[in-house]
Structure formats: C-alpha cells, structure tokens
C-alpha cells in the first residue's frame, strides 16, 4: 500500500498572470509573468530548479508542441522540461509531475507552469479541436457547452427537478462566482451579475446561457515545490503542503455502459474518495474550508458539489440556493471567481485554482480573504461528462 503524498511536498512559491484577453501578450510573456512572481515568492534563482513540468493543451494556437517553449521563454538552465497534456486538467498534471519528482527525491526543487493562449483564433469560445482520425467520423457535432449541458437534462430526469428550478440554481452558481471575481484584480470578468441577467442571457447550448459558461481567456500560472525541510531551510515560516493529489480517468464506462445515468461525474467521485482517504478527511462537508472546482459551466459546478460529497446526492440545488457555497457560506467555492471569471486558459487553470487556495491559506487573498481556512481543495476536470479526466488536489497548512 502506497503511503500517499500527504505532507511530503511543500509549495515554495506560486505565481499567476493577469487573466483575460491579453492582446498585448505572447504565450512567452504570460509564462514569464507567472514564473517571475513564483520565483520571487519562493526566493530562489533558476539555478536551484532541478526539473520543470509544463502544461498546455492546444497545439493549434499558443506555444506549439514540446517542452522547449517553456525552457526558451524562461531561459531555464538546460534542465529537464516535460510537457504534459490531459485535456482541461493539464495544469494539475504539471503540478502532479513536479510534486512526484520532489516526493521521489529525484528533484529538490521543481517547477510547474501552465499556460494557454486562446485568444488568437479569431472567434469566441474554445478553438475547434481535430481529435484524431476515428473520432471525427463518429462523434457528434457538439461544442464543450453542448457536452456539459447534457448533465442538466440527465440531472433533471434523475432528481425530478423542473427546468426552471435548475435554471435558477445554476444561475445562482454564476452570480456567486461573479460576485467573487469582481473582487479579484487578476480575474478576466469583474462585473457582478444578477440571477435575472443570467437566466435571460442568450442560449449557448440548452439550457446553458452565456453566463452559464466560463470565459475564454489567456493566462498562465506557476508553482514551485520542494520538501517541507528544504522550505524551512530556505527560511519559509508558514509551510503549505500537499495533502492529497488524485487523478481518475474514464475507461469508457460512462460512454459505453448503461450503468451511468449521465447526471454526475464518475471520475470525480473516484478521485474525491481517494483524495479524502489520502488526506485523512472523513467528513468533507465539515473539514474542507474552501474549494476551487472546475466550473467550466454552471451546471458542472452544481453536480460537482455532490460528486465531491459536500452536498448530499440530489441536494446540490438546495445547498446552492441556500448560499452554502457563497463567499460567506459554509464551504466557499470559487472564492477567486473561478473559471467563470478567470476564463479557462486550459493548461493554466489547475494551477490557477491552487494559487487561490495557497493565497487563502497564507492569508494573502486581500479583499477575498476568508477567515482562517485550513484545508483547500481543487477539482480540475477535463474532457466531457461521458469521457474525462478528473484531478482532485488538497492542500493545507503543514501542521493541519
């Protein structure tokens, strides 16, 4: 039995670029922006980095393939750079690579950088993907919102929720995130919205309207990890450590076997259970202080509340409407504004989520600061409800 990752690796520093329509910036500029902040936070120089992990999803725009875009942009000292790609969970994959390298003792200090430069396509929404030679011949013609919107019809059928009640609940999910994002200078969308605005917005993919969809933006985020011992030796006082880091992937069950009802994420439930076990959390609804989940679409966030076992099965609509996940609720969710307000530069998002949890745990979240959080959780999902990868990561104070 593996001993798990708990408290073996500490976060030495983190950085995050300003997210948004960065017409001014090349991908390299965004990487440098996040990297320099993380390096300053860590208080080290490049010669102390042993290895790096680099996440970016889309080849058609952005940096292109391989690890060299990162090595070149940051002028890294010829260290190993591994490019990782795992759909929208790529950022968490970069972090996982760096954390594992440190935990294995293969690296003393490792860097993870995630980036996506989406706004060079000429149109809104995510770039149109061209996934291999077989998939386009059989897969339906649907966009990301169309895929995730399917959760709504299946969730309504399973839990007997009316169209209107679900629409209002997912509207509240977005309203809450916009309220939070308005307080975040690094967020892309910084305007509060009302439930009525969300409900009446133009339809993107039934039942998801414009405000049910996360923004599309450019951005980068970075993390530098080491052992708690090295962190202390480098003079760090408050040590934030990784408590759990789990990744679960679909194997075709959801898309090919009739045991899945389409209303939840099978992988998220698997990853969450393992992560709680790894972190020693038995009552997540009470023990998790805050979380950043993969709110690519409002309905994704809603069902995820159940998949992470925070809301009881079928109870997410009530919890959302009760304000359980609002900034003053019991488990604030998307306190930085989430994908909703940051947008979703794919390779960066997982690291951006960790960045907010890290700031909150260190009391550095300024206007958004929550009172005394001890455990922060991130949930980073990639793919579609029927075929996906799901990362669940828990971080907290070293002694928590």
């Amino acid at each position, binding site marked *: 039995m593996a001993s798990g990752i708990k408290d073996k690796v500490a976060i030495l520093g983190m950085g995050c670029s300003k997210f948004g329509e960065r017409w001014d910036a090349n991908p390299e500029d965004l990487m440098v922006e996040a990297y320099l902040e993380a390096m300053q936070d860590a208080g080290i120089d490049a010669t102390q980095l042993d290895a790096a992990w680099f996440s970016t999803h889309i080849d058609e725009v952005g940096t292109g393939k391989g690890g060299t875009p990162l090595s070149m942009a940051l002028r890294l000292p010829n260290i190993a750079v591994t490019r990782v790609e795992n759909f929208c969970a790529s950022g968490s994959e970069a972090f996982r690579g760096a954390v594992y390298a440190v935990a294995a003792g293969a690296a003393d200090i490792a860097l993870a950088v995630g980036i996506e430069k989406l706004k060079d*396509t*000429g*149109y809104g*929404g995510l770039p*149109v993907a*061209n996934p291999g*030679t*077989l998939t*386009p*011949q*059989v*897969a*339906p*013609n*649907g*966009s990301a*919102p*169309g*895929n995730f*919107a*399917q*959760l*709504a*019809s*299946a969730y*309504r*059928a399973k839990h007997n929720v009316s169209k209107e009640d679900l629409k209002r609940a997912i509207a509240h999910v977005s309203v809450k995130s916009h309220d939070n994002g308005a307080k975040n200078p690094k967020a892309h969308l910084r305007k509060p919205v009302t439930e009525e605005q969300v409900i009446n917005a133009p*339809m*993107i*993919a*039934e*039942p*998801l309207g414009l405000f049910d969809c996360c923004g599309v933006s450019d951005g980068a985020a970075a993390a530098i990890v080491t052992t708690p011992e090295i962190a202390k030796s480098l003079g760090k006082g408050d040590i934030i450590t990784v408590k759990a880091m789990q990744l679960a992937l679909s*194997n*075709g*069950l959801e*898309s*090919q*076997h*009739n*045991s899945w*009802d*389409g*209303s939840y994420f099978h992988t998220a439930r698997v990853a969450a259970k393992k992560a709680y076990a790894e972190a020693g959390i038995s009552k997540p609804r009470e023990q998790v202080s805050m979380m950043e989940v993969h709110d690519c679409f409002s309905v994704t966030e809603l069902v995820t509340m159940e998949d992470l076992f925070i809301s009881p099965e079928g109870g997410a609509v009530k919890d959302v409407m009760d304000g359980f996940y609002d900034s003053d609720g019991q488990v604030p969710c998307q306190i930085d504004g989430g994908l909703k307000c940051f947008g979703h530069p794919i390779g960066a998002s997982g690291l951006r989520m960790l960045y907010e949890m890290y700031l909150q745990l260190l009391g550095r979240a300024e206007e958004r600061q929550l009172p005394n959080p001890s455990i922060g959780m991130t949930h980073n999902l990639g793919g579609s*409800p*029927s075929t996906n990868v799901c990362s669940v990561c828990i971080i907290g104070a070293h002694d928590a």
Partner: protein
Amino acid sequence: MVGLTGYGGYVPNLRLNRKVVASTHAWIAPNLMGKGKGERSVGNWDEDAVTMAVEACRDCLGDDDDRSHIDALYFASTTMPFADRLNSGIIASALTLETGTQAVDVANTQRAGTSALIEALNKVEAGGASHALVVASDMRKARAASAQELDFGDGAACFTVGKDNILAEFVGSHSVTHDFVDHFRGDHEEFDYNWEERWVRDEGLAKIVPEAIQGVLSKTGVAPGDINHIVMPCLFPRVPQSIAKTCGLNPEALHDTLAAVAGDTGAAHSSVLLAKALETAKAGEKILVLHFGQGCDALIFSATDKINSFSPRHGISGWLAHRREETNYMKYLTFRGLIEWEKGMRAEKDNKTALTTLYRNNDMIMGLVGGRCTETGVIQFPRSRISINPNNPTVDTQEPYKFAEKVGKILSWSADALTFSMAPPNHFGMVTFEEGGRIMMDITDVVPGEVESGMDVRMVFRIKDVDEQRGFKRYFWKAAPAELSAGAQSQAAE
C-alpha cells in the same frame, strides 16, 4: 416465375410550401405563380440520394437486420454523391449486406430506376442472383426561380426481387431508346438545361411513351383493357390521360403523380409511384409502370394472392403522412447549397477523412455495428478487444452486434448553438439501447422543444460532414424521433 417480393420507400419529412417560393419569385418570375400550389418534399441538409436510398431499403427490408439472403443490389439515381466510388457500395455497407453481394450503380437518365429494376428481374430470372435489392433515389438541384425548383421533390423507393413469395409477378417489359434530349445535365453541371415544353410534350412524350406501351403489350400479350393500374411520372398535367387514351388504356387506371404532395422525385419517381400503388393493389390486378427518359421503359406486373401478406415499415403513404411543413424558402436554399451564407470561422474545421481509418472501422462507421460479449452478453459500441463490462472485462470475446434497427432512448441531450451546424442549434445526446449499449450521437429531424430525456429514437444513416475542400462526404448514423408524427410545424416557419 420472378417478381417483386417486397417494396418500400422514403420521402423526407420537410415539405416546402410552393406558394411561399412562388411568391418570393413573383417579382422576377410571375409566370411561376400558377405553380404555387401544394408542397414538395425536401431532404434535410444531411440527406442525399444515398441516405434516402438506405432509408427506402430499410423500409422495405423491415426490422430483421439479417440481410444475408440479399446477393445483388442495384442503385439508380442521377444524383449519386460520387462519380467514382461505388455508391451502391455505400448502401451495401450501411445495410450490412454480405460482401458477396454484387452491387451495381445505374445512372444518367430519368428511367434509371426502371432500367435497374428490369436488370434485376432478368438477373434473378436467369439465376444470376436469388434475392436482389433494387433502390432508386434522387435529390436534384434546381436554380432559384426555375420551374424545376417547384416541380421536383426528393424521395426514394425500393423493391426486393425474387422467385419465392412473389407479391407482384413480372409479366414482361419493353424498352425503347431515342436520343431525345428534352433536358440534360452536363458533366460537372449542377442544374438541368431544358428545351421547349411543347416540343417535349408533342414530339417526345406523346410519341415515345406509346411506342413503349404498345411494345410491352404485344410482347406480353396483355390486353390494354386488362391494365388496372398505370404509374407514369410526368410533369405535364393531362398528358398521361391522353397517352392512355391513345393506347386504349383506361385513363381511370392512372395513379396520381403526387405532384401536389411531394413533387417529381426524378429517377426514383416511377418506383415511388409503384411502391405506393402496391399498397392498394389487389390480387390478379395488372400494373403498368412507365418511365420516360431518352426513350421509355415499360413494365407489367401482376399482383398475386400474396399481395396483402406484405407491408413495408411505413411505405410511401406512411412517409407522405409524416410531414413537417416548411415555409422558410431560405432554409431550402441553404440545405441544398444554393446560397453563399456566412458560416463563421467554426465551419473552417478541416473535415478530411482518413480513408484507412474508415475502412478499418467500416462496419462500425457505415453499419453501426458494435459488439456483444459472448461470455457475459454485455453489448457495447464500439466493439473492442477488452470488454467494457465493469466487473468482468473479458478479452477477445465479442461478436458483431447491429444497432441500426434498434430503438433507443435519449438519456441526456442538448441543443448546441455554439458549434457550427447546417441546422442550428445542433441537437445531440446520449442514446441508450434497451438490450445494452449506448452511443453519444447527433439527433436529426428535430426542432427546438421536441427533444426530451426518455424520448424514443430510431437510427438513421445520414451525412456526417462534407469535406468541401476535397469533395468527400462522410456518413454516419444519427438519432431521429422514433414516432413518425404528422403535420408538425417547422420552427423556422413560425
């Protein structure tokens, strides 16, 4: 004895209101106002002659997906999607016919359907095949503000030909050939070029069709008065009546040409009319089938006492009743590619098809064939070496399992307005099958508000994408409402 052992057809459910079209053109072509009556059938954007042919064959062959008895396939059309790729081969793949089936394309004339039928009847009679499938289908384009735009319709019909359980015995046929060019469509041309109607009527139809009728009557020894049903596509009203009289046939025996409800379906039309006539023919009655086109084919069938033992799944009458009125003329122009419209950058996606991948996965893509585990019975799509069964992932245990004739249920769905679609919003969803298996697939022939979880859907073979850069079409299966509804209104018409 050889004859027809089954029949079926297909008419797409969109019916374009002719008055709307004629009124739109009244400023430039006021002469068309007289044609602004009734409606014509219009294939959805994802239909073509091949997909309609597949539907007609399925209508004829019924629920049984064991088609191993079919050993010859004839496909007739003037609008085949490929000039060099066996179009009947696409149909054979979609129907999962045995590879030992001879597949033949018959093209380039309005009478291609009857010519294919004569070939099939002769082939089976001679013992060259035991069960032939003959299908005719056409989806012709016409210029805006042309008479053809209003006259034409889209549709298909299919027959099985054999020596046992004959519904309508083949009495005989006669064909005459004249290089009479009433219209033509040049190589690489999209549209027909038509000569003066009066000449076509008086020098063509009025002389050539009787020659074929007299030929078949004298060859078979059937007396004109013994003909109970006549089917003859013709765009000129009253001409068939006058031809019938000339030939001593009873004009009352003429069947309606469906001009008011569907339009002329081109090379398929005599087959469409015959398939409809067989729905009501009685034992012992004789049917004369005529199709004019650089000459004329004439065939005589005699309904047997088995004529009532067969019914197609829906038949031409069933499909005609399954109509959705379309009053948006622009939709028709868009579907047929007759107008340059702003598709947006998302339409720039490269739809190049890897032909290696297509062939490797041919039964999956073209035939919607998945797998069934012979140990656990678990059914899945697609077939794979390791089974999806969560508790027992058996290896190399799967046999082919056909999904195409199964009725599915919508588990989850969305109407996607973001993705590029020829008929936005694009509906798609997870379809589950009662015996097992599920497929995330496009949903077609629906408008917003019609799809809901739990809805029953049937599988339909349709165009998946068009590769305009290379002139290739790829096909796959989609879900469509299982219930054939009558009189539905197109949303765009509201």
